[in-house]
């Protein structure tokens, strides 16, 4: 009954209700990138993705925490810069949590380095009249910057308990749990905006000890180098090249080689075949397990041997970039370019995230300012941004053919992104928003967060993709058994052979591509491996597949975010674009006699 233990009332009555029919609900609210998710992880033991850029959390996460003797519900919310005025969709989610009274108590998580801004938000939060605790997070970084905060004075001025924490190291957690018992409604002056700003300025100045004049550290130096054009653009090129080396060469060739040829090709599949051959009496079941469209020889081999090594390398390297604070700085360079397609530099976050997973990135478009920007970003993600699983197959197939083949594919796909974006920006109603982006501090990524995050993402890939790979394989096997595959190949021949110049048997692969484009591409991988495709055919087929809607999950996410009409419209726009682009590419390459 004592979460938080109501302190013996000294003067004002504690604002926390004593008797509860359900667990006390605590919302973690604060500016973007102040460490709410890290704190959530420490309180609940549940991992919510932690990265170093504003907009990592775009949905509400819930977990349970033990405070004193009582179990409490903790709610991790998307970061908010304000709760009044123009809000982006992720900010609206947090506002709704507060408005709907989904929380009994609010812990405002603040960046101790930016007290004034935090207090401006405290003033907004006060309007919801909920008991609050103020957690000054990242005090370690504040101390490095020479900033010390008089927490007692701050508590006096705001009327709420103030604790200092370093969430990533678990420091100050006990103090925070203890302070929950004393949560109070903030005691602030008049709710007039100008008044609040002055109040925040005044309190921040009086409660802040120390000047905050930073010493030149390596982080500053790197931060400057990556954002200035003269050094920043070569660094961007270098980062992309290293990324390619890690994912495209090491992951897609070395690792896949080990797992596919070494493990599956020479150990698992032969063993499975001989075992199934001895144990299983039915020919059709043997076929289903280890045949041409076998669950083991095709489904599992694709998911584990071809895609998994690349996805794992990708997420490891990507996580490092995420946690370093580098990605938002790329937005400075991309802003002008993105403006031509109706977006602003901030859209670099969902776009780059799409290289990991388009489905997640579709959700991250919530950080963009206007509905028009969201729609364009969702469309372009679905159209042209290959996810890590698909990069796996692209690198795997084209890397083995030639560098020019890779360049052609990425050139065509990037060209389509800008062409379609350019047109969409002019056709769709609405405006783009201003480019205003907070740059997170440059940090050395912690290896522990990196490993946990990568592990969870890989596990998520396995859960998400393996069932589709297996289910899709089952479907193909079934279609093949009843002769439907041959029929589809015949019907699809005019498009497949006539327009795209591909063997008619590729229809099956394209069905796979509709389920998941990486799954379809994995089918191509097998064909290309057997030498059944020419270089031109491989490039054309992969380009078409890359331009398809990524996967069923991505489609459902588009529907969830934007409704059935928009979801279907996007598929209706993208599919003809993909096939027409493939047709033009096919005839163009043949006309000019390219062979890669």
């Amino acid at each position, binding site marked *: 009954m004592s979460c938080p233990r109501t302190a013996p009332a000294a003067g004002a009555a504690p604002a926390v209700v004593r008797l509860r029919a359900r667990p006390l609900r605590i919302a973690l609210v604060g500016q973007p990138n102040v460490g709410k998710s890290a704190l959530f992880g420490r309180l609940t033991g549940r991992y919510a993705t932690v990265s170093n850029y504003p907009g990592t959390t775009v949905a509400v996460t819930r977990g349970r925490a033990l405070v004193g003797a009582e179990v409490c519900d903790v709610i991790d919310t998307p970061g908010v810069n*304000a709760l009044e005025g123009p809000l982006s969709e992720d900010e609206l989610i947090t506002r709704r949590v507060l408005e709907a009274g989904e929380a009994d108590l609010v812990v405002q998580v603040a960046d101790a380095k930016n007290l004034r*801004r935090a207090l401006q*938000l405290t003033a907004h939060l006060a309007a919801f009249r909920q008991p609050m605790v103020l957690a000054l997070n990242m005090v370690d970084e504040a101390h490095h910057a020479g*900033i010390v905060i008089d927490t007692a004075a701050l508590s006096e001025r705001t009327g709420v308990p103030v604790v200092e924490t370093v969430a990533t190291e678990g420091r100050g957690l006990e103090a925070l749990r203890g302070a929950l018992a004393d949560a109070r409604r903030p005691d602030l002056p008049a709710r007039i905006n100008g008044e609040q*700003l002055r109040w925040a300025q005044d309190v921040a100045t009086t409660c802040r000890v120390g000047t905050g004049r930073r010493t030149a550290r390596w982080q500053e130096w790197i931060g400057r180098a990556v954002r200035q054009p003269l050094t920043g653009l070569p660094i961007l090129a270098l980062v992309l090249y290293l990324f390619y080396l890690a994912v495209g060469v090491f992951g897609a060739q070395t690792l896949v080689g080990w797992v596919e040829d070494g493990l599956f090709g020479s150990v698992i599949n032969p063993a499975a075949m001989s075992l199934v051959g001895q144990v299983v009496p039915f020919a059709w079941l043997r076929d289903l397990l280890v045949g041409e469209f076998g669950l083991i020889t095709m489904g599992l081999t694709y998911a584990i041997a071809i895609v998994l090594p690349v996805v794992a390398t990708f997420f490891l390297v990507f996580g490092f970039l995420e946690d370093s604070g580098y990605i938002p700085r790329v937005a400075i360079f991309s802003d002008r370019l993105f403006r031509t397609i109706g977006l602003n*530099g901030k859209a670099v976050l969902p776009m780059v995230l799409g290289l990991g997973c388009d489905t997640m990135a579709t959700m991250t478009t919530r950080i963009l300012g206007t509905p028009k920007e969201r729609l364009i970003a969702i469309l372009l993600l679905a159209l042209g941004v290959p996810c890590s699983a698909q990069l796996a197959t692209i690198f795997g197939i084209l890397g083995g053919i030639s560098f020019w083949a890779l360049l052609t594919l990425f050139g065509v796909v990037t060209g389509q992104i800008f062409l379609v974006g350019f047109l969409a920006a002019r056709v769709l109603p609405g405006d783009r928003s201003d*480019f205003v982006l907070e*740059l997170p501090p440059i940090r050395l990524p912690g290896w522990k967060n990196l490993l946990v995050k990568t592990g969870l993402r890989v596990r998520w890939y396995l859960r998400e993709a393996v069932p589709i790979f297996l289910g899709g394989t089952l479907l193909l096997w079934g279609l093949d058994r009843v002769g439907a595959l041959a029929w589809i190949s015949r019907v699809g021949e005019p498009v497949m052979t006539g327009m795209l110049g591909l063997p008619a048997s590729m229809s099956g692969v394209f069905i796979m591509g509709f389920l998941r484009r990486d799954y379809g591409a994995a089918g191509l991988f097998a064909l290309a491996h057997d030498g059944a495709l020419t270089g031109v055919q491989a490039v054309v087929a992969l380009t078409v597949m890359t331009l398809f809607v990524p996967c069923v999950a991505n489609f459902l996410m588009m529907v969830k975010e934007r409704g059935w009409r928009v979801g279907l419209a996007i598929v209706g726009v993208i599919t003809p674009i993909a096939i027409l682009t493939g047709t033009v590419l096919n005839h163009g390459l043949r006309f000019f006699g390219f062979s890669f």
Partner: protein
Amino acid sequence: MGSASSVSAFDDAPRLSSLRAGTRAIVRRVLPDRSGRAERLLALGVTPGAEIEVLQTFPGVVLRCDETELAIEPAVARAVLVDVLAPPRG
């Protein structure tokens, strides 16, 4: 620029967009527009009276306000009126 119409003829204060890298200044005011530009900047700490330092001007403007580093597009920088404190050192 579309925002030019909202500029009062009396506002002859320098714009953030006209400052060179290294300049420190005090924000005088942010010109409002229909998209809520001023409110958004206020929420990020760019409030009247706040001290800022211009870190970079190309391809976008990068500034520091307290311990926050912000990247903004030139059009937004044009909407911020400032009083210059100190020109770039050196």
